[in-house]
């Protein structure tokens, strides 16, 4: 379709509508500036100072950033965050996509099933953490009791350093799968039925219909889900709230994510400048990763490929 014909199809907006649109965007933009952009810039600036949390502020130049190079625990935290992201993001993606495909078509009680799957997402993460703490209690928790039959009753899901992080990732997937399922569901319902009809007429089986129609049509939705869950895993509440309540970074620092480590540096050890420098590093990492993803997908413009 040519540009001229597209212009003809889209009605020209009236001046009042443009102002209203600007107003709506401005509010959101203001929120982003105040709560995201400014704190990110401030974190980088505070990272240049030694701040003791009691009013003493000294210019430190790049000292805090240099300290990071020799901080073994920070590097360990970065490794843990990477491992957590690698476990959580793809698993949550696959599980929520599968769920969306399962509840895509109406069947008796489909609303109930969708609601049940989404329910964990409306509960506070702290409550989720406390609940899973009970379920996973060594020996007498529901999970060890259930797994006792297959010889896994004595496994300590939160107390074993090798298992604590995967367990956290599992709880995060359980928490977020309903939300991501809804996003996928919306994407699936936007796919025109004619495409499936044409594929069926061409003799495509279920897998071929998924791979040839559903998957490419879902690319913008998949991109959104991927970016949001990635940011959530790297620097969001998932990497902090559950750790704070369930493990406090333990056992043996095995769940000490970078966000949690930065929190400890600031609020337990009073090293605000260093914590800000760590947050600056995380901002930089997030920008590089999301920037790379945007570059690879040409800004998420899948429909033009």
């Amino acid at each position, binding site marked *: 379709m040519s540009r001229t014909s597209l212009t003809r199809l889209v009605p020209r907006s009236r001046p009042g509508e443009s102002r209203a649109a600007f107003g709506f965007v401005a509010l959101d933009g203001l929120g982003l500036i105040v709560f995201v952009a400014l704190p990110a810039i401030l974190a980088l600036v505070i990272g240049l100072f030694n*701040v*003791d*949390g*009691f*009013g*003493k502020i000294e210019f430190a130049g790049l000292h805090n950033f240099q300290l990071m190079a020799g901080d073994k*625990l920070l590097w360990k935290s970065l490794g843990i965050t990477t491992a957590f992201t690698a476990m959580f993001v793809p698993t949550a993606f696959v599980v929520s996509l599968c769920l969306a495909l399962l509840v895509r078509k109406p069947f008796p009680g489909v609303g109930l099933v969708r609601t049940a799957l989404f329910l964990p997402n409306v509960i506070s993460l702290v409550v989720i953490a406390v609940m899973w*703490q*009970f379920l996973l*209690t*060594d*020996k*007498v928790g529901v999970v060890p009791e259930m797994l006792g039959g297959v010889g896994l009753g*004595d496994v*300590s899901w*939160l*107390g*074993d*350093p090798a298992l604590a992080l995967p367990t956290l990732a599992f709880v995060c997937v359980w928490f977020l799968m309903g939300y991501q399922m809804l996003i996928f569901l919306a994407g699936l319902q936007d796919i025109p039925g004619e495409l499936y009809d044409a594929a069926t007429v061409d003799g495509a089986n279920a897998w071929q219909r998924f791979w040839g129609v559903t998957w490419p049509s879902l690319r913008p939705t998949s991109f959104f889900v991927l970016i949001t869950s990635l940011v959530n895993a790297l620097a969001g509440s998932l990497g902090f709230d559950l750790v704070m309540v369930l*493990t*406090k*970074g*333990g*056992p*043996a*620092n*095995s769940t000490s994510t970078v966000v949690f480590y930065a*929190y400890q540096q*600031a*609020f*337990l*050890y*009073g090293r*605000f400048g260093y914590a800000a420098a760590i947050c600056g590093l995380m901002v930089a990492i997030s920008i590089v990763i999301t920037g790379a993803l945007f570059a690879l997908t040409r800004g998420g413009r899948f429909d033009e490929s």
Partner: protein
Amino acid sequence: MNPPPAPGSVTRRGVLRTAAWGMGAAGLGSLASCASGSGDDIAFWHFIVPGTPNYDKWLLPLIKDFNARHKVKVRERYIPFGDYANGPTLQTAFSAGDGPDVFMLSPGDFVRYYNANALADLTPHLSDAVRADYEPAALASRTFNDRVYGLPMEAEPLALFYSHKAFEAANLSEGDLPKTWDELLDVAQKLTGADRFGLGLETSPGYYQNFTWYPFMWMGGGSPIASDQIHSTFDSKAATAALRLWQQTIDLGVAPTKLRGGGGTDTRSNLLTGFCAMQQTGIWAVGEMKLNAPKFEYGVLPLPTPPGGKQLTVAGGWALAANAKGSKPDAAAQFITYALGSEDPACVKRGRLWNTVIKKNLPVRKSVRDLARRKGDFDDPIYQQFLKDIAPTAKGEPRYPVEIYRAISDALQACQLDGANVKDAAADASEQIATFLSDYKGGSIL
């Protein structure tokens, strides 16, 4: 022209006016929640839960009495314990220059606050008689260069609590109570079953876990720093032995890798439920069990000792401190001495109420202890045992700075839960402590 609004109807202007008042009230509300006192007020932040006897019978009457006798008025603010001890609220307030005038402070944080000049000197407000009335060890951990920067509210020693029912179920009697580390592991093994661990030690990393582990290190004569406060002595036989003991409890499967509920301080979720047959916890559990499970049969015993070791425990406890950077540090100090450190018989009576009537801990003032004894508060056999057998062996909670705490915590966690080599872990921690000490210029650590 719009018609006049009917009586009781909602108009746009009315809604706007209400909204404006609402926003104004919200603004005033947030001003009122500012930490540092304004006008004639001083702010007191604490974690004493509203509705509990500690709050209703001790805190509120104390504030009411003080406010009735002084021009300066105290405003209290409750902050849940988890947030107060490990959360950002207190630290954020100090960072913003808006810390509370009076606040509760643990020994673990004392050096950091002192080094930041955030603690007001309480010495001018204390009489010599009151200073002499305090147990020397309790006051020493809040003193720098003979100046007092916090008044302790209590002493809370740790011991080993055990369940009679669990011992009976394992065919064990009082004669089997462990006195040595070897016996501790042996008895814990006998008590461990399909649904029960023999022993409960803290597993979550933090100040509290270190606090519970220190006596095991001290028993063999260990310490993380030398008396010159320049050299690290953590890489010692005593420290490695204590690390090995905690590791063995997990390796042998006699202690859980994660305690239930609130962890080591929580007897209700661990000892009472039968999850652990023995649990290391503090004297506060005596009062809690009396309140929550008066029929639960249990006993206490001193922490077992290593071969050739000395019986020791640690006594923690919170102190009240005044914010030197607040608007009224003198008034704040006056309130603290009124509450805890005056010669007035009412103050001693209040101390008894807090230490031995409402809570069950050990008074840090001799006068309070004497009054409690006269009133028969210590007649409870378990309380008696704490007083006679355990308290005399208690050392005050150390005020190691966060760098030392962190090095020890990492070593302890790695050994207890990750199977690290105890000698390597102790050597690593010792090196970190030595690096820190070589550059440390703050207040005295010991």
